[in-house]
């Protein structure tokens, strides 16, 4: 399972590398299946992050250092 703490970018990068390796076709089948599973985990992780994206959280740091939500309306 893809590590939740790894950044989206790292996941995406690893996914790209795995796909490139799979497409090259020189990974032995057993390893390829493992790689494919890993790729699917990464896809799911990326998809989840993308799906879970809500409205951008905007905050403002006030003069006193307090951080509060910032509403552009």
């Amino acid at each position: 399972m893809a590590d939740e703490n790894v950044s989206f970018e790292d996941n995406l990068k690893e996914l790209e590398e795995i796909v490139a390796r799979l497409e090259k076709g020189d990974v032995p089948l057993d390893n390829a299946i493992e790689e494919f599973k890993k790729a699917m985990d990464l896809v799911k992780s990326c998809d989840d992050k993308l799906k879970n994206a809500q409205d951008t959280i905007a905050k403002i740091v006030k003069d006193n250092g307090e951080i509060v939500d910032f509403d552009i309306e």
Partner: protein
Amino acid sequence: MDETYITVSEVTDYIGEIIGSDLNLRHIFIKGELSNVRLYPSGHLYFTLKDDGSQIKGVMFGARYKLNFRPKDGMKVLIEGKIEVYKKNGLYQLYANKISRDGLGDLHQRYLELKEKLDKEGLFDESHKKKIPNFPKRIGVITAQNGAAIRDIITTIERRWPLCEVILFPSLVQGDKAAENIVYQIKRSEGFDLDTLIVGRGGGSIEDLWSFNEEIVARAIYDCNTPVISAVGHEIDFTIADFVADLRAATPTAAAEIAVPPYGEIKNGVNQLKLRANLAIDKQFEDNKSRLDNLLSKKIFTNPCEIYAPKEMMLDNLLNRLEHSSKSLIMKNESRLNIVKNSNVFKNPLEIIEHKQSVLDTLVSSLKYSSNALVMKNESRLDLVKNSSVFKNPDLIIKDKRENYLLQLSKLEILNPLNTLKRGYTLAKIEGKVISSSKDLKSGDELEVEFEDGNVNTKVI
């Protein structure tokens, strides 16, 4: 007095002709301060140009497209244009071709000097530029809390990459305190684990933007550990902040677009990768399957008999030959054995022995007999020899032989021709040959006549 009245239009036309024919007024350079500035949606700019003692109305057609700054009341400007009469209002007014800001010379000089100084120090070097993260999780923005810039940035990020948090560090962005405030917020932002920092404001006059040309701001941006995108409106080509920032955007919106990836493209990209991974693994399965199929279609799997049948046949053949040759060998030897077995030696060995014994006995007895006979024969022969007179009375034999000899001798004496010759007989010979008949002779033959005591040669007459 014959007074002739002319119309207002006529006098205005007249004045217009006089003014219009004056070369000085047809191409004039005027400086002053703007007031009553109105920019119409048509793009035309209406204003009043004034100084302490006077004022003149002015217009610039298509100003929106001609000006690189937003004209404001109180702004000192230099105008190039002409004076003409606007008949409808009976006004002479300034028709501006070019309007530029007055008093910028000093600022521009300061800008160039600072730019050169910082450039020499290496603050603009590409080697110092930090990479802007592709997938920021938290972006800091230093701009005015109430300006359009922060709204543009937030809406753009929301649209493109809502996964990102935006933290505003509100700052003055124009006026005397702006530069100091911006520097303060840049330093403050460092404690917030930001991936990217956007520093900027919307468009404004060169004075409005001046804080972004201040040295302290440039150095704060340079010293900032967070990658900085400058986002200052595009009144002039570049601010010093643009040069020193890690990346420059022409507007706050552009800065937000640069700061985050496009959600749709990334989503598509992930989907594409998913698709490619599926295709790749399918292809690998397919390839392996076809390799397997290919192997399975080989004779060894489809018709294994074909592989070993010839060997089997060879083996059979060899077995057959082995069987045959061993059988024949056995048979041959058996028959030899049978011959041997069936021979009398085995069937009736005593008979053979008896037979051989009787033959032997016969032989022995015959041998005995013949040897005895031989012995007896030779014994009798020996006895005979022994009993012969030779051995018994040898003297008698010798006497007989002697008597006989003497008798023979006396006979021989009588017959001797020479004795005849003694009694007067001769022998006639021719060439040694005795002539016993006269008929053998003829006249003239030489004849040898032998006498007892010698020979005489004669001739036949």
